[in-house]
């Protein structure tokens, strides 16, 4: 990649333009710009402007990815940025990008770009407020994925809630959803409860790290847990598991998810399932897997059992649903269980599989929610019993949907196949005892159940006799075609060349 460095040498003075703060705060700046009273109120102009920002951000992230090479001193410098923020707590406002962060940042940028394209048909009102909140949410999520300090991580974790509330509960579509506000409040309260308990963990870890190693710091790399009493370590780890378990979600804490995902507008559902759930998994990886790794060894089997319950139980629930959006919502809980299982395996394959599944599932679930949104927009119903017979009216849509649904089941040559198989293999080869092996075997039926509910979705939703009510619906527009095709193409690429991603993680 040497020719990239040649281009870069001329840009030595422009460090600020090729740096992490620019990556994170560009959407936030755009958000404030759109929110300001001086900015235009023309809805089309706002939409195009923010789409431009999202597109530019995607290109920028791809540039960062191409430059991402930790062995080169110049580009290694680009992967870290920090200044002192609150010295009395030892908080450094610092960001760091490693391979996993890079993958998730790329996913974030991509899904937000897709959801801004999808917003054209789904968001018809209050564009100014909607796009500024969307951009703010993007900044918050990027901050979570790149933060290098516990308190900065927590700050972005909380910052995400306010835009997320308004995006889920706001009135942006033409049809009014009476439950949306309630679901949004449920989402915010659940996540806030989790984040408060996480804050307890962070404070305890910060304090005990200070008294055992005499270093007033909250940076991820400088926290050492060896000398902290074991009981305290367990308490801290449990705090983190509850905090991230709400977002992930782990089974008893999942009740907010189906409501929030169902009642949110389609582009927001794509973001919620595609990225926001991954923040929970990422947090679990950073805090439990990396920092508290002594305790994680002991907790992992218990967590793996929870993950197994996640995988199987929610898959059955998904099968019994009649609302197509709820099917997809429950299927994403099931898949998040798989990600958790990969982490619990506590080995390199498991980690790779877990991160790869975050990427694959992020793409798949965004595509599935997009499909639900397209169906709902045309048929005005999401009930699986009254749908059906639209395949002949929408051949292009049917073809793309079939491919994405097949990908979500785990059919070979698509990315989820590789991550699912890798996860189960990693749990099989885990050295954490018989529990992990048992969960690996018991989670195999997922592949069958998931194909049951997804094929039910495909069968009842698309095929069957033609219905008079849906006789006049049109095939997908160019916008929707672009979204679905790009997702499908990426799934294929990652499915055929998984090494592109796995190389970054290792």
């Amino acid at each position, binding site marked *: 990649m040497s020719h990239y460095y040649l281009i870069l040498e001329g840009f030595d003075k422009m460090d600020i333009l090729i740096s992490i703060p620019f990556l994170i705060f560009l959407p936030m700046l755009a958000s404030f710009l759109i929110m300001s009273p001086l900015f235009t109120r023309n809805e089309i102009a706002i939409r195009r402007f923010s789409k431009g920002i999202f597109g530019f951000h995607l290109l920028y992230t791809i540039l960062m990815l191409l430059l991402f090479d930790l062995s080169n001193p110049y580009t290694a410098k680009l992967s870290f940025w920090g200044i002192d923020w609150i010295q*009395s707590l030892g908080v450094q406002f610092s960001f760091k990008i490693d391979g996993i962060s890079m993958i998730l940042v790329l996913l974030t940028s991509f899904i937000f770009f897709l959801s801004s394209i999808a917003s054209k048909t789904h968001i018809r009102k209050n564009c100014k407020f909607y796009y500024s909140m969307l951009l703010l949410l993007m900044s918050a999520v990027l901050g979570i994925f790149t933060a290098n300090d516990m308190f900065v991580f927590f700050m972005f974790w909380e910052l995400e809630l306010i835009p997320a509330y308004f995006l889920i509960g706001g009135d942006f579509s033409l049809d009014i959803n009476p439950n949306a506000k309630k679901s949004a409040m449920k989402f915010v309260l659940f996540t806030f409860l989790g984040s408060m308990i996480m804050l307890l963990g962070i404070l305890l870890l910060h304090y005990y790290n200070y008294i055992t190693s005499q270093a007033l710091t909250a940076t991820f790399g400088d926290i050492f847990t060896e000398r902290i009493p074991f009981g305290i370590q367990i308490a801290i780890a449990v705090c983190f598991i509850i905090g991230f378990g709400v977002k992930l979600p782990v089974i008893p804490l999942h009740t907010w998810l189906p409501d929030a995902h169902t009642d949110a507008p389609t582009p927001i559902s794509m973001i919620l399932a595609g990225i926001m759930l991954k923040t929970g998994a990422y947090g679990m990886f950073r805090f439990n897997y990396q920092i508290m790794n002594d305790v994680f060894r002991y907790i992992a089997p218990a967590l793996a059992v929870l993950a197994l319950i996640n995988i199987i139980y929610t898959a059955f629930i998904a099968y019994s649903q009649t609302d197509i959006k709820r099917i997809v919502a429950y299927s994403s809980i099931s898949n998040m269980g798989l990600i958790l299982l990969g982490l619990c395996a506590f080995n390199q394959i498991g980690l790779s599989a877990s991160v790869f599944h975050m990427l694959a599932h992020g793409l798949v679930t965004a595509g599935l929610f997009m499909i639900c949104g397209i169906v709902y927009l045309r048929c005005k119903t999401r009930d699986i019993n009254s749908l059906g017979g639209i395949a002949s009216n929408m051949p292009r849509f049917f073809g793309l949907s079939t491919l994405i649904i097949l990908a979500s089941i785990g059919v070979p040559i698509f990315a989820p196949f590789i991550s699912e198989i890798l996860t189960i293999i990693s749990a099989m080869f885990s050295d954490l005892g018989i529990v992990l092996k048992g969960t690996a075997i018991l989670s195999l039926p997922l592949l069958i159940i998931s194909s049951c509910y997804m094929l039910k979705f495909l069968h009842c939703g698309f095929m069957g006799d033609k219905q008079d009510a849906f006789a006049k619906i049109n095939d997908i527009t160019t916008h929707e075609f672009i979204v679905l095709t790009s997702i499908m193409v990426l799934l294929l690429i990652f499915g055929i060349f998984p090494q592109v991603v796995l190389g970054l993680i290792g």
Partner: protein
Amino acid sequence: MINDFFNIFLPQGCLAVFILIQLVLGMFLSPRFYKYSRFISLAGLSFSIILLSTVQIEPQYFGFKNSIMSDSYTLLFQFIIMLCGFFVVLLSKKIINTFRQNAYTYNALLLTAIFGGLNIVSANDFLTLFISIELMSFPTYFLISSAKGYHSKEAAFKYLITSAVSTSVFLLGVSYLYGITSSFNFTEIYEILSEGEPTLIYTMSGVLIILGLISKLSVFPFANWVIDVYKGTETSVLAFLSTIPKLAMFGIVCRLLVFPLSLSLELPFIITIISIITAIWANTYAIREKNVKVILACSASANASYVLLVASLVSVYNLSTVIFYLICYVIMNISVFSFLNITEYDNIGFFVSNFKGLFHKNHALTLAYAISVIGLAGFPITSGFVAKIYLFSAIVNSGLVFIPFLLALLILMVIALFYYLKLIIPLFDKAGKDTVVLKSLYSQKLVLFVTTAITLLIGIYPEKIIELCRFVAYNV
């Protein structure tokens, strides 16, 4: 005596002169010159703030036969009190328009209350403290009752009765302490008591004194007044009531806990339990409430309880967090009340549903208000976030025993988020036909935007203020 006056009493003296000027002018000037009363108040406060630089603080200065003291701690509190007073006077234009002939009296009362607050913070003597508390409380009754209508009179009467009861409790505690030590002076009491073991009567007197003082903070045994009083009070007076008495009381309570009442081991636990009860009561009360003022009353009570919890676990670190939290809280509170002051005179009403859709017609005003409320809930980019983390880290630092209390507070924060969100969500709803463009005065806008800007600034770069608070706490 003269020396003492020039060394530490100039700011208060200046304020006293301006109080007299207001009273004299009120007697002789025709009511049509009512407008100038505000400017005289502002001038008085500005001069006093400038004169704060003449106060001797190195290391600690005791004046008037040890009854008044000054150090950097009192100076900081006095500065914040006068800053809040400045904002309150700016906000009081609308209420003064309703009773023009009494404008000078109103301002004189306001300045007197601020004067009392300044003296409370610098008191070094229970007698001075008692007189200063009364000096602050008496004008407050009249300020509360100054709005039109029945409710304000009811509120004033309730405040009067609670204040009277709590003051008598306070005096009872002081009399016990006087019985043990035969002195009113903080320093002397501390010296006499630190020679022997603390007795039960000492703990009792400490509890009574603290209970008497914290009634102004709307903490548990005397908490119920806060709802009715907030309901009936005009918003610019509320901006006063929710900041200045609170600052003054916390100023003296923290000093008492550091100094003469620090010998009792039971006292911190009693205060901790009181504050937890208050937090639970206030947060759960606000869940079903729909009146903005009542929600803010509960929020005031809850925030006071968090601060009190940390203040009772005395250490330098905790004291600095208390001061920092108070600064942030007071600024956000004034910001919220300045927005309510704008809406009050547009006859919008105080129910949450009345704010429906205001955002679509008044972008800047509602955004500033929303930022302040979000700050109260403790969300990032505002000072509330830093204050919250700082406060909770102080509890963690105080020992493992207090972790259950912290857990309780953290769960209560979730409930708090629910009612804070209730305050701002209707703003962003669909605008109805009767949604108005708010008419605001320059002074109201100035206060709202300046306080919001301070909130954001502290949230983004808190280090300088934290350093200041640590320095001040270290010197107590």
